[in-house]
């Protein structure tokens, strides 16, 4: 049951936020609803744990916000300037983690900003295929690749284990053109 505790707390918090007031009634009601939902729709428990680093996580959130705005402006420009003649590409980028949690977080982080999203994750080959709108030619692939690698490093710095982070830095150090930025 302890493994389901985070889900219970989270659902209770959602319930209380939906009511907008913290009172004994909403709190108890929330716990009751959360328990019912958790019992009725059990999610598989993922054994691995995340190491949350608060400062790196804040950096990640800040970076995502800036990325959301910058990419938003780029896509608006793409809409107005190129429109029907817009071009795009699908780029293979190495996936730097084998944790399901982090792969999910990475895909979500990459896919949040306009113009880019993860089309396909290939766990066996450790590759993710990223769609990027606004690529003009094959030369842009390297830029997209570095951008996604940088995002992966930020996510792993915020949520990964120290071992994973070291492995990522090691791999990025060996990237052509020095992927670490």
């Amino acid at each position, binding site marked *: 049951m302890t493994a389901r505790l985070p889900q219970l707390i989270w659902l209770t918090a959602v319930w209380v936020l939906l009511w907008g007031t913290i009172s004994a009634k909403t709190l108890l009601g929330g716990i009751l609803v959360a328990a019912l939902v958790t019992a009725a729709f059990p999610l598989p428990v993922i054994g691995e744990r995340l190491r949350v680093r608060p400062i790196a996580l804040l950096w990640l959130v800040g970076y995502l916000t800036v990325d959301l705005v910058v990419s938003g402006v780029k896509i608006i420009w793409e809409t107005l300037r190129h429109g029907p003649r817009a071009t795009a590409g699908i780029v293979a980028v190495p996936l730097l983690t084998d944790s399901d949690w982090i792969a999910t977080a990475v895909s979500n982080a990459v896919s949040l900003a306009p113009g880019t999203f993860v089309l*396909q994750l290939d766990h066996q080959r450790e590759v993710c295929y990223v769609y990027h709108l606004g690529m003009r030619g094959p030369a842009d692939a390297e830029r997209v690749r570095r951008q996604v690698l940088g995002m992966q490093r930020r996510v792993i710095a915020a949520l990964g284990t120290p071992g994973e982070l070291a492995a990522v830095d090691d791999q990025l150090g060996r990237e052509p053109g020095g992927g670490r930025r």
Partner: protein
Amino acid sequence: MSAVGTVVSSVLLLGGAALCLLGALGLLRFPDVLSRLQAATKPQTLGLLLILLGTMMRLDFEDAATLMLVALFQVITAPVISQLVGRSAYRAGVLRRDVLVVDHLGSRLSENGTDSTDGADGAGPPPQR
């Protein structure tokens, strides 16, 4: 509410609405499913966040808390939806190849013949090309 607050929240509301409008414009102008998907899901995310922020400034904290949930779920679910629709569109082959200047996934799939990327999710056979 102070005059400055009114101006700031008005700017946020109008800016958010403008972004949603530009998203709709992108939906009309872009050439295929994958690019339209970008216009349909993403500028709205930012647009909605701005509108929510502008609205929150005009509300009491208790009502604003509920809006924070809306923002959170938008940020969590928008990428999932674009991934699902994009992947389905790619597999069904309903996209314009001439729009893509690079396609590493397509070249991977065709050089393999078979599709090993399915893994556990058991999606259908690879697209016939």
